[in-house]
């Protein structure tokens, strides 16, 4: 199969699936190397950019996904009366932030940081598939450890957890007594 044909196959696969298309998976399906798929997917992404299509090839959760360009959202919403998924609540975002940056983390650790009970918000996040149980902590009671899921990456358009921006001001904060000025 030449590059031209393979590119068309990849486009068909992209259009046919909701899951981000992982190069290795596409490679297995077509019977070519993952590197070639990856290279051609990058080429496609570039082509759509150049051409100023209505869509873009987004790199997310380790794969590639066709999404409409954000500036066209109003037309889509109007024609299909589709609304984007409801935004997460502040409580959910705070909890997710703690989990994302501290994973794997127990409920008690999250609650200590947020200063409030997190039972119901954790349930919501589990139900929406944004977090998942990743194990048990070797501590009294063997509490559940939580981490972010693949769907978390998709929801925020991230390729991997490493793509999260660094935690703000992490290095400039110090214990009270050790700071000379305010």
């Amino acid at each position, binding site marked *: 199969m030449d590059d031209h044909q393979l590119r068309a196959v990849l486009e068909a696969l992209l259009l046919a699936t909701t899951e981000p298309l992982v190069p290795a998976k596409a490679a297995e399906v077509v019977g070519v190397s993952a590197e070639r798929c990856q290279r051609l997917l990058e080429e496609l992404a570039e082509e759509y950019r150049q051409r100023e299509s209505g869509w873009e090839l987004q790199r997310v959760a380790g794969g590639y996904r066709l999404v409409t360009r954000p500036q066209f959202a109003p037309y889509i919403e109007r024609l299909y009366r589709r609304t984007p998924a409801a935004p997460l609540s502040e409580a959910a*975002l705070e909890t*997710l932030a703690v989990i994302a940056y501290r994973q794997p983390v127990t409920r008690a650790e999250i609650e*200590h940081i947020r200063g409030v009970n997190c039972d119901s918000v954790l349930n919501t996040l589990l139900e929406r598939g944004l977090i998942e149980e990743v194990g048990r902590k070797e501590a009294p009671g063997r509490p559940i450890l939580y981490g972010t899921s693949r*769907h978390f990456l998709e929801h925020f358009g991230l390729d991997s957890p490493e793509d999260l921006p660094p935690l703000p001001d*992490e290095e400039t904060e110090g214990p009270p007594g050790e700071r000379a000025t305010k």
Partner: protein
Amino acid sequence: MGYSVRLPVFEGPLDLLLHLIEEQRLDIYDIPIAHITSQYLAYLRAMERVDVELASEFLVMAATLMAIKARMLLPKPAEAVATADEEDPRRELVSRLLEYKKFKKAAAVLRALEERQRGKFPAQPRRPSDLRPDLSYLPADTLQVLWTAFSRLLKDADPVPQQIMRDLITVRQKMALVLRTLRRHPGRVQLDGLIGPAPSRTDIVVTFLAVLELARMGRLRVIQDFPFGPVWLERVGEWHGRSPAAGSSRSPAASHH
């Protein structure tokens, strides 16, 4: 402070404290504890007046603040003077506030990422119409296995209350209702939307069966964009006001056009 009409809502006591500190530009490393305590208590009283039920954590924090205030007012015992500097009663509170503040900022970052992502609609999947997921990894005797597994479970479990009710609305009636709803709404309809505000178990089952039957007949498609995501129904066949005339109604969905 005039907390008059609109009270801001806080995620918790740390959120509230941070707000008070930032609003009044106080130094987080040298919190005027008596001042902040009275502000904090004023807010709690205001919330009480408008009948907002406060989480118990707010009250625990009030107690903590008052304890810190008391410790700061106490004359230091003579033998403690030497080490006084390293034991600031506010120390733990400050480090918790700083830690919380970091994650509050991180939450704002996530909010921005989410907002950017919400404007991007993913491609709706186009499956070849005859495609079914591969269930071949299920052993042929799965039904038997299910049956055994379940009866074994029942032996160990408390009996689950079983309700058996007469159908108030038949599956066939429900099918007509579902089709009408889908005709009225172009695009997709969320499955939850088909079930009334307070459905009985029977109603849910009947709706479910009606949807299953319609899907089997090829009149609608059931779509879930991601695991745990909402379930959507999409009309197949008659559309754009055209009547579901016999024969022509199914064709647009099939890929053999």
